[in-house]
């Protein structure tokens, strides 16, 4: 029963990838559905192209922070960040990852290969679904909307069923100005429909 009181969504990536908007849209949709929500995000110095994380807790919660090993799902906009925050996962955690690698701006940094990092994450044994978020976003109209693709994929995973409805997310996005309203809704839908495809191909 405890398990169904709330859902912990950890969204991670690199400063500038739209994680604050991701959290805000999801949280506003939860409120439209009459479900309580708390989010925690980081502003200021930590944000300048650094590693960023947004905690989103939906349901019967009072604290805005997700405990380590306490995420039901981790949505990652970037693969190094997915690996960095994997300590928020437990055996049952679902990982939804964007297939993108961004080099940290550190002189001489040794970068792992994309395939190696995906392999490493998968070897943790967690259910892992990888999507081409940036490509799908460009298909929707702008690379900037990759965050909405990943939000669509999160809803497509059905893990938030009973907490957040796709139509409420669309309602929240439709308050945005054009052209973002149209592009973001397209991105959201592309993410939503791509999830199951990606999930099947990843389990192969």
């Amino acid at each position: 029963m405890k398990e169904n009181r709330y859902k912990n969504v950890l969204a991670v990536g690199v400063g500038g990838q739209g994680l604050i908007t991701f959290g805000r849209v999801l949280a506003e949709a939860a409120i439209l559905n009459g479900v309580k929500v708390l989010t925690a995000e980081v502003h200021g110095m930590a944000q300048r192209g650094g590693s960023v994380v947004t905690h989103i807790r939906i349901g019967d919660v009072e604290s805005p922070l997700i405990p380590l090993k306490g995420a039901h799902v981790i949505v990652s906009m970037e693969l190094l960040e997915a690996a960095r925050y994997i300590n928020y996962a437990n055996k049952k955690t679902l990982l939804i990852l964007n297939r993108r690698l961004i080099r940290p701006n550190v002189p001489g940094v040794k970068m792992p290969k994309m395939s190696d990092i995906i392999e490493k994450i998968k070897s943790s044994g967690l259910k892992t679904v990888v999507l081409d978020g940036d490509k799908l976003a460009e298909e929707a109209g702008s690379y900037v909307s990759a965050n909405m693709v990943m939000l669509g994929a999160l809803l497509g995973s059905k893990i938030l069923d009973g907490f957040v409805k796709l139509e409420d997310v669309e309602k929240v996005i439709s308050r945005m100005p054009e052209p973002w309203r149209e592009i973001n809704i397209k991105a959201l839908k592309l993410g939503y429909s791509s999830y199951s495809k990606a999930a099947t191909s990843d389990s192969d």
Partner: protein
Amino acid sequence: MSKVFLEQAGKTVLLMGNEAIARGAVEAGISFASAYPGTPSTEIVETLARYANVLGIHVEWSTNEKVAFEAAYGAAMSGVRALTCMKHVGLNVAADPLMSSAYTGVRGGFVIVTADDVGMWSSQNEQDNRWYGLHAFIPVFEPYSPAEAKDLTKEIFNFSEKFEHPVILRTTTRISHARGPILLGELRKPVEGEFLKDVKRWVLVPAHARKLRPKLLERWSKIEEAVNDFPFNKIENPGSKKVIVACGITYGHVVDVLKEIDKLDEITVLKISSTVPVPRKLVVEAVKDAEEVLVVEELEPIVEEKIKAIVQEEGITVKVHGKDLVPREGELTLNRVAESLIKFLNVSKQSIPWLETNQEISIEVPPRPPTLCPGCPHRATFFALKKAVSKLKIKPVYLGDIGCYTLGLNPPYRVQDTCIEMGGSIGAANGLAITTKQPMIAIIGDSTFFHAGIPPLINAVYNNTPFLTIILDNRTTAMTGHQPHPGTGITASGKTAKIIRPEEIAKSIGVEYIDVVNPFKLDETAEKIAKALKFIEEKGKPAVVVSLRKCALLVASDARRKNIKIPVYRVDLEKCTACTRCYNVFACPAIQVLEDNKAYIDPTLCVGCGDCAQVCPVKAIEPTIKPGKEWKELWW
């Protein structure tokens, strides 16, 4: 950001904690709000500024926290409700008027927000500003959630006005930058004030202050009594042998952990929102029949020590735990609170699913520290500065300051040998340039210069202290999210203002060597910095170089707004020799690395500053379109 801010009463909307505090202040009917931006406090006044004209209230970005405090204090003297906001270390700057404000009191409600950065996400320390409340005899209130932040803000305006005394609202990063559903209340209209002359109250000469001091202590006793009935303090499930005292934000963590172990309806919880002064009667009532008490509070044992004193004075035999079980440093998280509660309540870890899992999943990855943005003019200045220094074959000490440019401490730049506090670069140079023979270079941003850089520069002119001050003028307060300041020509609420230029200040105070440079002309900037350093060496006097170009984030957003095409740069892979200079020595994050170590410029990140083209030794980098005049003008 949140258009929902002005929605009508009765609606539930998602607001960030800082927006909720702003809404609470408007529901309380403030007429005046002032602040200097600082994480995690910035969005309170930023939000109010956006709606200032609609609401008919005065909202301003003040030059620094001391001025912001004094301005709001002045407004509250006149009988209107006033708000001032700052980050924790900002209250150090404003500590002087803070102490005085308790002596005189105020006529209109006066709320001082201190946004403490527990965990140091964006600050030089994690000082606990509840000490200021004890020090100044000013009550401190702490919300546990964004929703409570709104209601508490509104309530403490009444509290302040009732006692004609200032109050502190202490928030932390996880309240200020958390979002949650907020039930909106009615808005109250601002009013006009009137200053009523009363020299015995407002003129703090010793003779008056001596008479005000016993009155202050008397007021404090009344406040100590009143917090026992403060509606945000409460006792839940009275009567258990083990009692948890949850202060401010920790209440949410405590409730969530108690739910996980199915003890929420069993354990007595004393929730304290007025942590200074501690509500004595509530404490006695909650702990009188208990055997053990655990005080859960972030940072210092302020409530813990007070409760230990209370039980001793009241003759209650109870063991009071606090910092023996709860960490003193850093943020309290659910994990840390759970560990403390499990020990205190003597329950098994197995009862919490996320604690029982032994398996720790972790993967090692390279660090990703925050970094200067693509096109950042600071990077260009740093590159030119290093070039000048290496040409002169000198080894200067770089005195850093607070702003985006603090990131210059990292390789490859390494041009921040100190970073103390706002204005500390020029300040410390005044000593270091005297006691050493090393060349001193103070590096400070425009907003920080206006905030606290002017008095130490006057000091350098007055005492004839030889060092170079480089003012990195990007025409905004960038780190906190682009707030205007006295050099920008615009006020918080969008009105046109006089532009105050740093080089004109330097000139008027008597600096004899002043130069203004365009950092994107790398060689020219390097030469001009070298010339300034030579002047200092020869004449033994201070010099100032203003490095003037707009923040790249502003330029990129202006370009989008005005529909001006950004001349994105590209690498000609035929010419690129994989020398790594552009991404390892210049280190622009828009430059990515291909498998053969050649460079690739990500067109989604490049903002067209063109610096990398000057840095490339084989001229392999070129713009995709010719940068136009319109484009160049955006950077001014």
